[in-house]
């Protein structure tokens, strides 16, 4: 793991409710630059919501999220009563283009597999030819190059997940968010994904935040693990510490596979 000097993301007091249901109570989380942070949590703990907020797809109700050194002059997003939705505001476009969120059930555009990858590159002004070339390389790395010219709706769940990976490889975001990345992958696909993730961290200096409920996946890829429980991050520690010597008793029981009530 590369030397950690700063935190790329610093979230403070992030709060989010859907109607009367408070999903995130008060999230404090730091994501070190160049690391893979895995957020563990049970079903319905708010993992996806947190990821969408950090990935600027959804506004929080309160709190601040600071993105260090991604874009000059607009590093902190402050949520409050008058906050505009950063996902839909031109002001945050450059910041958003430094990051990418891969969904648990990858959405696809109707069109060819290749065009699904070139879309993001062309939004950034890349020429059609260059975009196709780079996208083909990404599809090869993700292992679905032979499907490039086929219609994306013909992909299986696992192949769609690989398409999602190819998008990340082509766009090379500084910050990558993955929601349950291996949920629809077979063991071979999972291995490929995890290897690619480590490669992007080591060689492309990418920072990743991965949400999962798979403790074993966290053990394999995490530099840092955070445990989200009942709307709060109740523990955040380097991997070894998290698994061998957790501070919080609920973390210890979760890691041991005991039911949390």
């Amino acid at each position: 793991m590369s030397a950690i000097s700063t935190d790329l993301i610093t979230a403070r007091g992030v709060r989010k409710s859907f109607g009367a249901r408070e999903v995130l109570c008060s999230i404090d989380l730091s994501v070190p630059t160049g690391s893979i942070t895995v957020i563990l949590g049970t079903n319905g703990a708010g993992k996806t919501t947190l990821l969408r907020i950090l990935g600027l797809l959804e506004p929080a109700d309160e709190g601040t999220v600071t993105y260090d050194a991604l874009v000059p002059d607009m590093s902190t997003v402050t949520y409050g009563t008058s906050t505009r939705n950063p996902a839909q505001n031109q002001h945050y476009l450059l910041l958003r283009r430094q990051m990418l969120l891969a969904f648990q059930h990858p959405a696809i555009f109707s069109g060819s597999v290749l065009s699904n990858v070139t879309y993001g590159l062309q939004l950034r002004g890349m020429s059609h030819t260059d975009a196709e070339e780079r996208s083909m390389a990404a599809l090869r790395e993700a292992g679905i190059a032979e499907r490039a010219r086929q219609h994306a709706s013909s992909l299986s769940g696992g192949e769609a997940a690989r398409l999602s990976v190819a998008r990340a490889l082509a766009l090379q975001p500084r910050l990558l968010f993955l929601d349950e990345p291996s949920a629809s992958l077979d063991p071979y696909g999972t291995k490929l994904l995890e290897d690619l993730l480590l490669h992007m961290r080591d060689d492309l200096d990418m920072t990743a935040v991965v949400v999962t409920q798979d403790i074993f996946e966290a053990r394999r890829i995490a530099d840092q693990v955070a445990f989200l429980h009942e709307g709060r991050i109740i523990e955040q520690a380097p991997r070894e510490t998290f698994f061998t010597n957790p501070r919080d008793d609920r973390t210890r029981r979760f890691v041991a596979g005991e039911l949390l009530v």
Partner: protein
Amino acid sequence: MGDIGRGFVQAVHLILSLDPGTYEALGTSLRVTMSALFWSALAGFPLGILLAFAHFRGKQGVMNVVYTLMGFPPVVAGLLVYLLLSRSGPLGPLGLLYTPTAMVIAQITLALPVIVGLSVLGLRSADKGVFDLALTLGATRTQASIALLREARLAILGAVITAFGNAISEVGAAMLVGGNIQGATRTLTTALVLETREGSFDRAIALGIILLLVSFLVNIILSRLGEGTSEAGNVRHLD
């Protein structure tokens, strides 16, 4: 059966003999309906996107109103527009009553709810993840909306075709606010009513056949356009 049979012969005759009255009515029908469709689409699709995905208080109420207006009886719509535009009405001074513009306004009140309502349904059932996907891939809100419209293009096409069908075939509103003035506001449908009243059933049937024919042709063109947009978009990369 005799009238219908004679109607077919008459229809062919009217079309081939370039009957001026028929072509005038046809031209008015198309001009009025196409303008109404254009303005309804221009306002209706942004409204549809808004209602499909924005969250605000009273949204369900607005949707209920839209769905109700989709079944707005044309003659009631016509009556309301008539009262608005009549000399003593609030918009009376504009002098629009018995003009094609008045008919366009009346048809907008019929076409707009259909376009809004059906596009909301279509956009909601299109994969909503596509909007978020476009956003996270770096799209602006406008670009993401375009991506979404492209995904929902079949439903959008359905909305346009339905609105067109409703607008071109209605007669009550066109009669009330247009006045069925020959050479000005006489459309295929109002001419058809007139011919029926005068007992010229064969000419009436002929006009009905021409109306169906025009609808058929316009629907073919609209479908082609709908497929064209998909080819202009993502699919162009397919070999």
